[in-house]
């Protein structure tokens, strides 16, 4: 139901966005919002300090005039995501970052130690192994073509198309000794995994079966005048994840509420998962206030770094680069 509301609201907001004038004056300090120029400055800072991020131009037909042509949005690709959210939820203590909880309260479910690892690593590893078998039987794991896994679940109502009829003989007549027959290592690993699961934790090591990867985008939301985070995930065979699968990587407090499926401003194609920006400015304002109370000052160029830190509570298992530090006091 929430998602229907979101869709309706989303459409209305598209109209509103169209009518909203581009923010000209900096209101960062008072309200926590950004002008497009400030977004670009903060983006440049992020790209400079976290080299996995880069600017992207997006679809040429969707270029927004208030942003430079080659700096439409920010992107980082192939970010690893080693485990599902539900595997870590309720394992660790949650800390409420904000007092007024309500629907959109930011809950920190995941705390990193200084060295970037979690103290819960071992427990999680055990859980991972237990669930290996379930994960093996994802419906789209071997049948569907790369790319069509956007659907994944029900292909039964499609009439079966006989692709064999398209095969061409005669083209293999040319003997080509220089072609290697290759099997992707990942697939080999996946097949061997029940054995691997039974083996020691060490052998399991880094090649955990369900390593998904995510592409993260940060666009500028003209209506809310804040950055907006988009995520698109792929499974270990680099097939796009379904919406439901993607919600497994979103903190359950946020799935379908803070994280919604909407159309990306710079991309053609299906709706993408996005962290709804309606509360970003409020949170940013709180952070600015905290810093200023402590006698410090927060430059607008740090906006995206801070932004990435607070959206981490929504997607705690996606290990993107937000390593830059800033001082709260």
């Amino acid at each position, binding site marked *: 139901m929430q998602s229907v509301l979101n869709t309706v609201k989303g459409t209305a907001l598209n109209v509103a966005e169209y009518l909203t004038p581009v923010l000209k004056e900096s209101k960062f300090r008072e309200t926590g919002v950004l002008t497009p120029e400030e977004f670009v400055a903060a983006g440049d800072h992020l790209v400079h300090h976290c080299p996995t991020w880069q600017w992207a131009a997006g679809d040429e037909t969707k270029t927004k005039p208030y942003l430079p042509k080659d700096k439409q949005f920010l992107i980082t690709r192939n970010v690893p995501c080693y485990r599902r959210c539900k595997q870590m939820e309720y394992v660790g203590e949650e800390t409420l970052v904000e007092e007024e909880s309500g629907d959109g309260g930011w809950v920190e479910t995941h705390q990193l130690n200084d060295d970037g690892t979690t103290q819960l690593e071992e427990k999680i590893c055990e859980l991972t192994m237990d669930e290996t078998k379930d994960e093996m039987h994802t419906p789209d794991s071997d049948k569907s073509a790369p790319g069509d896994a956007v659907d994944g679940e029900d292909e039964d109502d499609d009439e079966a198309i006989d692709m064999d009829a398209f095969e061409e003989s005669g083209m293999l007549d040319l003997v080509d000794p220089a072609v*290697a027959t290759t099997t992707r290592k990942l697939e080999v690993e996946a097949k061997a995994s029940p054995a691997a699961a039974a083996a020691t934790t060490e052998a399991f090591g880094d090649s955990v079966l369900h390593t998904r990867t995510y592409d993260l985008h940060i666009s500028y939301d003209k209506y809310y005048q804040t950055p907006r985070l988009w995520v698109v995930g792929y499974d270990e065979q680099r097939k796009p994840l379904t919406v439901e699968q993607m919600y497994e990587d979103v903190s359950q407090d946020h799935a379908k509420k803070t994280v919604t499926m909407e159309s990306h401003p710079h991309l053609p194609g299906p709706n993408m998962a996005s962290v709804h920006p309606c509360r970003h400015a409020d949170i940013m304002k709180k952070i600015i206030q905290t810093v200023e109370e402590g006698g410090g000052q927060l430059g607008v160029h740090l906006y995206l770094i801070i932004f990435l830190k607070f959206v981490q509570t929504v997607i705690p298992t996606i290990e993107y680069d937000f390593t830059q530090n800033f001082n709260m006091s």
Partner: protein
Amino acid sequence: MSSGSEDILQFAPWESFVSPTFWHKLAELKLDYDRLSDAQRSISGHYTNRKATGCLLEADYTSFNSTGQPPKFSHAAVGTIYNKNTIEEFKALDKLTLLSNEGKKLLSDMCNDRVAGDPSLLTRFFVLSFADLKCHSYYYWFAFPCPLTPTLKLQGAVTRLSDLTNSSKYAEALQSLAPESQNFFILYANGQQNEVVETRSLSSLNESEVEHYYFGFADPSEYEHPAWLMRNYAAYLLQRFPCFVGKTLRFLGLRYNQQMQMDDSLIWNVVQSEACDLTKTEDVKFVGWELNKNGKMGPRMVCMRDSMDPAKLAENSI
């Protein structure tokens, strides 16, 4: 596999990896711009040599942009799409002629030496497609044309870059290389002149210095085999400098891991003993159609109904 004997060097074939946004953009272009025209369109693809999986050539919505800007740590490939109007046309088209026509474009780039100015021309690919816009099914077949030249013989074992003496010097030189010129380059290493190690562009190639060269390229293969694109690279070098025939050429496949270390980079020493004239285009045979999922010569199909069909979209949004 790499024993001391003279093995034939084998290449890891490209695997196409198409993002759903590619089909969405194609559908949009077909409905709003191309309509009944089935003229070919220039597209671009990209591949990465950072933590490569398989040997992927990726295509997404940016493939249709007029100025291709490959993602970070990726390199551009030059392509064409032939989108047919009907499934019958798609099926009936003479695939071998199409491959050889595309292959001849590649040869002319090699023979005119346009490659020296823009080495990405060596990574030419094309897509034959049919978009069934009513059923939201997309039939497609990628091909990566490559002249069928005499085989390269592998000399000795495949070496890792990190196993070379002075490998840190090599790494240092490679790090100074601008990201946009990493797709194809020359690493010059002269042991006599107090260890000069530097990178150069393909256009500065001097045939008399061949023994000091490593022919470098960004290698998107995760296997011990070099990626398919090295085949075109070797064909180009042997065509451009016929005196290379019979000489040992050193190829360096630049491979990064997630942390951008290049320890996994491999070096192949190869020899081609027979000359081959690619200017006589009529005699040259081409290979390069991608196999389908079953390992057969055939196209692939992807059903995009769940993200394109309005009825499905309405259903899923409740």
